[in-house]
């Protein structure tokens, strides 16, 4: 009994933090209809700023706390004014979502540069000694978390229920167009909510920092927890966000306390999926549905098509060039080229799901891990032929994808992206936690080289040619599908689901097909990755990889199949060529995502075409 209460108290504390984060997400969602994935980034920023101000500069806790929150909020406002608010007017919801993913990556990269990759823990605000309440030990940080949560919740409630800003917030949540006519400055309101959410994020990060060690890439965890909380409670419902956060915290702690922390992560995914399947509006959403104009907004983008003789010639030239590369370069650069090609296979899959069908997937790293570990374990421990191992991985991934699709095929935009994000995070915790199977954090060693029957592909050059040949075949197959009715159906779904269905296109079925293709290709990429490195550790195929893939695709150009190649090359090769850049890689990926969405909507390929047209016109 005592133990139970003890765990519940811990869960309520953690849940209180989740609830605060959820409030931030819900706030921005109300005004804009966008799930702000950057929310978790502000938590980390707030916590690390608190650490530095308090411990490096020696400021008193209260002052450091206040300054950390103000600095984060100011940073949030600047970031919002430069990116989120101007983009909101122009970009469709799915692109906005990815833009916030870019912001999250950017903030992570920034904290990596400033604070490095080690975890930080801040001393509790009022001593280490836990408080004894009738035999239950409450961490000394507990009351602080409770008080802060109550202040934040009360403050937000007051803001919404009692002030003009609140009235405007409600009006624009219910009907943005009408609100605009009523004279609400939606842009300013958006910026305000974004900045306020950043401040709330900083508060939650700072208050939880003493009971949780935090490092630069923990933002994804917080975003995910906050999102699951709002999904449970109902996206635009503030009481829902609070109840969802508390419930999630308690459920996770109970699962971790009585079973294992791995089970807790699985439980979070299960809770999310069951909610989405059974009560997609959440448990507090009620029937009051947001009249969402953004849902109906169609995706406008220019047409980048490769067809005709020019394409055949260009493709031939490209293949010859790629085939000649191993004779021109060697050493580390050739190894990086191999990795570029291997990652490109996963990006190719992402292009089918995201570039063609418009289904944002953050699951690529999860499927890479499934494929990588399945193939590596089979080949290393059971002497299965490497290619068979890769095939087994693809089957596992296919099943996982189909299972996930049962829920996600009816979802759109944010829900799909976040369900897949939860999946990736779950796989992350499995690869780290199932030590007996995966070797845990230190990874699997001694993975054999890829072999085609008796022919071993042990050298980078052999591997390069094999992967290149595979890619040529894959692109030929996908191009065949994409230029035909299959591809048109996917494109139609991306552009306008209602109109697509009105033509008899079975929207859920095509979404599942696209998602399955992307999962299988990611799995293949993961297997090849393991065979190429002869080693596989969790962070090689962890969630940041998913975000990286999206950056590769976007910067290269979606919906072109080949666009992922320059994208993958840019992001993989630059840090190899200029070693000092490695530290800035995450930051650059984030910046690339954000900038590409704002200024290069068709990627490098589309941009190059436009430049060509412009030059021709002169």
């Amino acid at each position, binding site marked *: 009994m005592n133990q139970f209460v003890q765990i519940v108290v811990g869960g309520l504390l953690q849940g209180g933090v989740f609830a605060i984060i959820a409030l931030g997400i819900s706030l921005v969602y109300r005004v804009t209809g966008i799930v702000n994935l950057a929310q978790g980034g502000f938590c980390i920023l707030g916590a690390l700023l608190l650490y530095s101000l308090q411990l490096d500069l020696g400021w008193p806790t209260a002052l450091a706390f206040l300054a950390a929150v103000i600095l984060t909020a100011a940073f949030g406002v600047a970031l919002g004014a430069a990116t989120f608010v101007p983009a909101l007017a122009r970009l469709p919801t799915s692109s906005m979502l990815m833009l916030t993913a870019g912001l999250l990556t950017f903030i992570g990269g920034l904290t990596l540069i400033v604070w490095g990759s080690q975890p930080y823990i801040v001393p509790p605000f009022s001593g280490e000694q836990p408080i004894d309440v009738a035999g239950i030990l409450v961490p000394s940080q507990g009351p602080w978390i409770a008080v802060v949560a109550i202040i934040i919740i009360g403050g937000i409630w007051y803001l919404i229920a009692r002030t003009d800003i609140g009235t405007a917030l409600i009006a624009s949540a219910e009907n943005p167009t009408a609100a605009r006519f009523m004279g609400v400055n939606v842009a300013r309101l958006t910026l305000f909510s974004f900045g306020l959410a950043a401040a709330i994020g900083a508060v939650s990060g700072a208050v939880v920092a003493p009971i949780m060690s935090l490092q630069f890439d923990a933002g994804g965890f917080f975003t995910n927890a906050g999102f699951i909380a709002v999904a449970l409670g109902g996206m635009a419902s503030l009481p829902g966000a609070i109840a969802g956060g508390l419930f999630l915290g308690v459920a996770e702690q109970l699962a971790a306390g009585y079973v294992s922390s791995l089970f807790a992560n699985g439980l979070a995914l299960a809770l999310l999926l069951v909610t989405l399947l059974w009560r997609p509006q959440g448990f507090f959403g009620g029937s009051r549905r947001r009249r969402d104009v953004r849902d109906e907004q169609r995706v406008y983008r220019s*047409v980048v098509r490769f067809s005709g003789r020019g394409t055949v010639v260009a493709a031939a030239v490209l293949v010859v060039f790629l085939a000649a590369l191993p004779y021109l370069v060697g050493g580390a650069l050739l190894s990086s080229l191999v990795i570029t090609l291997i990652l490109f296979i996963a990006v190719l899959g992402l292009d089918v799901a995201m570039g063609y069908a418009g289904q944002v997937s953050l699951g690529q790293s999860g499927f890479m891990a499934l494929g990588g570990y399945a193939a590596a374990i089979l080949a290393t421990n059971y002497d299965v032929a490497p290619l068979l191992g890769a095939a087994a991985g693809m089957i596992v991934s296919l099943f996982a994808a189909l299972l996930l699709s049962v829920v996600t095929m009816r979802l759109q935009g944010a829900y799909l992206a976040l369900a897949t994000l939860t999946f990736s995070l779950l796989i992350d915790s499995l690869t780290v936690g199932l030590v007996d199977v995966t070797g845990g954090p230190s990874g699997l060693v001694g993975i054999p080289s890829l072999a085609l029957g008796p022919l071993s592909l042990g050298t980078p050059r052999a591997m390069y040619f094999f992967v290149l040949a595979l890619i040529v075949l894959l692109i030929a197959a996908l191009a065949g599908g994409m230029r035909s*009715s299959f591809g048109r159906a996917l494109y139609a779904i991306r552009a306008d689901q209602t*109109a697509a269905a009105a033509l008899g296109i079975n929207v859920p079925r095509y979404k599942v097909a696209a998602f399955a293709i992307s999962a299988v290709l990611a799995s293949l990429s993961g297997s090849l990755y393991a065979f190429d490195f002869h080693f596989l550790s969790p962070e090689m195929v962890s969630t940041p990889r998913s975000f990286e893939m999206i950056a590769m695709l976007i910067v290269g150009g979606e919906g072109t199949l080949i666009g992922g190649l320059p994208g993958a090359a840019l992001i993989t090769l630059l840090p190899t060529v200029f070693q000092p850049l490695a530290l800035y890689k995450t930051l650059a990926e984030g910046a690339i995502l954000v900038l590409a969405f704002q200024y290069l909507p068709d990627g490098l390929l589309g941009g190059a075409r436009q430049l060509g047209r412009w030059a021709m016109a002169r």
Partner: protein
Amino acid sequence: MNQPALEAIGLTKSFGGVRAVADLSFIVPAGIVALIGPNGAGKTTVFNLVTNLFPPDGGDVRFYGTSLRGRTPNAIAGLGLLRTFQTARVFPGMTALENVMAGAHRHVRVAAVAQMLWLPAALREEAALRREAATMLDLVGLARFRDTPASNLPMGAQKLVEVCRALMARPRLLLLDEPAAGLNDAETAETATLLRAAADSGVTILVVEHNMSLVMDIADHVIVLDLGRLLAQGTPEDVRRDPRVIEAYLGTEA
């Protein structure tokens, strides 16, 4: 037996307090049928109920005798009941020709795998679709826009592309929501020709239209809605003379 193409029985739908469609029954015989009524009469809502974009509060719809209740929009399209939208919904990111080709979706026979393997059957089918779509664009005078991104076309052309896309599906019944709104006179005439040609080839058309001279020109039968109810129906001449119709339209057109 001469079954009606479409039969609505007691259709009802409210939005909040607004009764958009109230206990509405009508029959669409073969030919070109016009569905008219003042703004807000519930015409678009009828289309949305027939194609089950949202479910009715009550009532049923039969398509050649088959009930459409509970079927998904894509299943309804699969039966041969196609529609267009009041605001043109061409697919941005696709050319005009690709848009029209997308309409053929329900006729595509070769599997996606065959398309990926570039099998001859797939290539043949694709080429045939391309020819058919191109012919259709020629027919409505949009040949020069074939490779233009559909969303860059002028509004009138977008509406025509949408009609072509629906016709590519070879529908048995086609619901058109204001196909001539925003078109100039020449484009309107082209639309009329297209619709007559389609009707001659056996497609039944139910068209919502505010342009009365177009309605009188092409319709065999007219259904008049007002405030979600059936006001009158009959031949264009009958309806034009009906005092209730004249009253409902007073101050607009007549």
